[in-house]
């Protein structure tokens, strides 16, 4: 589904990714771990199409198409979803209006019929229950005045609503208490399927207790330096990143 080859990227003068390779197939869950500043979040944002991060080399293909050629909105319609580490507040934009516009914009782009208000409300209520989100958050302005946990739930609500082919979760576990972490994980597990792939960007092993990955990768200094199964995460938790980064240097 997703093939990243020798990807290099920079923000201004600063090199962020220095030749990254990653193969993600449908049905798989990949965890990308790594120390601060290793380029994890940048990778997530490059896949979603953020401006200001320049791809300087390599390629990213998604279902056989050049992902880097697509505008952010086209990537979303093609099935790429990024759950933000810091969901953006949109004062003055009603949450229901936003969710409906987004879902219908994606459907329009794919040539599918748009949902009318009744069908949309039925769908969104169903999904909100799944992520234990208070119904009144629909009437509020997007993320404005939401608590940290509410913002993350609103991201996972979108994940369950849009049902993307590839979901990239950028440190979705940060700032969540145990209860919120559990419901957020349930939301993610609910969309897990044979047609879908998930990339979890995280610092901590904790999230992986709830969402079990098929592969764990360690990203350091702009490259994936070690890949393994879920036991790699446990070992990292015990020994710290230095265990690998030092052995790489040696």
């Amino acid at each position: 589904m997703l093939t990243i080859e020798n990807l290099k990227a920079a923000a201004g003068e600063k090199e962020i990714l220095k030749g990254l390779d990653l193969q993600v197939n449908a049905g798989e869950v990949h965890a990308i771990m790594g120390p601060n500043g290793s380029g994890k979040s940048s990778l997530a944002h490059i896949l979603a199409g953020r401006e200001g991060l320049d791809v300087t080399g390599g390629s990213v293909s998604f279902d056989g198409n050049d992902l880097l050629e697509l505008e952010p909105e086209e990537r979303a319609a093609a099935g790429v979803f990024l759950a933000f580490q810091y969901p953006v507040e949109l004062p003055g934009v009603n949450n229901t209006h936003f969710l409906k516009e987004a879902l219908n914009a994606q459907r329009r782009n794919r040539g599918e019929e748009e949902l009318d208000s009744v069908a949309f409300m039925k769908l969104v209520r169903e999904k909100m229950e799944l992520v234990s989100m208070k119904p009144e958050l629909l009437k509020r302005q997007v993320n404005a005045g939401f608590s940290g946990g509410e913002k993350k739930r609103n991201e996972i609500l979108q994940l369950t609503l849009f049902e993307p082919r590839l979901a990239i979760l950028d440190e979705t576990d940060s700032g969540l208490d145990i209860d919120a972490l559990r419901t957020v994980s349930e939301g993610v597990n609910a969309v897990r399927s044979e047609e879908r792939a998930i990339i979890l960007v995280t610092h901590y092993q904790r999230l992986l207790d709830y969402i079990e990955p098929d592969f764990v990768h360690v990203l350091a200094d702009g490259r994936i330096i070690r890949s393994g199964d879920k036991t790699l995460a446990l070992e990292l938790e015990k020994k710290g990143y230095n265990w690998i980064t030092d052995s790489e240097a040696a």
Partner: protein
Amino acid sequence: MNQSEGTLIRQLVSDHQPAETSRDENPWLSVLKKEAASWFCDMPLPNRKMEAWRYTPIEFINKTAFSLDAEEAPFEALAPSDIEELLLPGSETSDRIVFVNGRYAPGLSCLETGNGITLHTLAGDSKLPSGFKRQIGHADLSGRFFFTLNNALMSDGAVIHVNKQGSERRRLELLHITVGMPDPVIHNPRHLVVLESNASLELVERYTSLGKSSYFNNAVIDIHLSEESDLLHTRLQEESELAQHLSHLTVRLEARSNYQQVSLASGGAWSRTDAQIIFNGEHAHAELDGLILAGSKQLNDVHLEVLHEVPNCTSREHFKGLLSSNGKIVFDGRILVARDAQKTEAALNNENLMLSRSAEVDTKPQLEIFADDVKCSHGATVGELDPEMLFYLRSRGIPKAEAERMLCTAFANEVVSRISETPIRNHAKRMVLQRLANQGEMA
């Protein structure tokens, strides 16, 4: 005299005076106009060296040979069906006072008399109670060029008097329609709105046009709020894109009165509001929210003065500017707290969103405080659309243009959502959307 001294407009004023006095039905009005005309002759034309006109050029006044409408007013040819398209949906049969090209149009107006509201007009009503005559004649003519011009040329206006009647707040629309004339015309409506003690009113003051034409609407509206009266004031300026619009608004608040204004200015090539809010009695409150739109070849200026002359009053002023293309906005807001006006609470804020690098904002919020026990604040911001917000929306599948529109609408809605009447609020929303759609060239 050379052109820079306003020869054309001075000529119009002096030509107009003698003919008018000879057949004027209202001698008291003629006296006022004559007096204003004599002031006007000696007044210097506003120029960039005057602080109030520093950022607002008025070349049009030298370039345009304005005329007054012919005696046979154009509204006589207008049937109610001609103005249907201009009416706010759902308000077809509600109370409205219509002025066409500056003159009262009884055939297009509908007002249920009694129920606390009385209407007089300057041109038609020789029996105007002397109290109102005094209030109109009381104007300070020194130093205000266009205000004095209005006084020298004023031909008609509404005098709206509201008594407390029942508990229901009545809604009244004061609708100005300009019908295009082959040559540029100037209109000088002069309105007075008086709310007696405990009276309440919702006033919708609107300026619109039939057809695209060039004209100058130079309106004056004075509002007097007696003790414990309450006015909701919605102002919608939707003039022709070729028009000049200047409205002079004065609101005087007596004790415990309440004034709430929401204004939306979108039309006109050149548009300005000169507003003065004056606190005359204690424990009064005023709130003003305004949205100023300036697009291609538009200048939109708001000058606002809030005068806290007495203690214990509160005011809040929030004006937002939305600029695209080479539009220009001037905002000059000033809160003055007099020495005795202790316990004043006042906040003034101006926010501007620029969608284009060719647009221009000149903003100047000011506080002048002479009392020592007050809570006052003021501020201004100028910014562009937030790239983080845009990326968030686009990453959810919303196309760039649509995402920009959503964020602009959200910016505008903070003001528009304060309009309490649904049909008017929806109309205002449409005005904003139409503007954003027309603008196209957002970047």
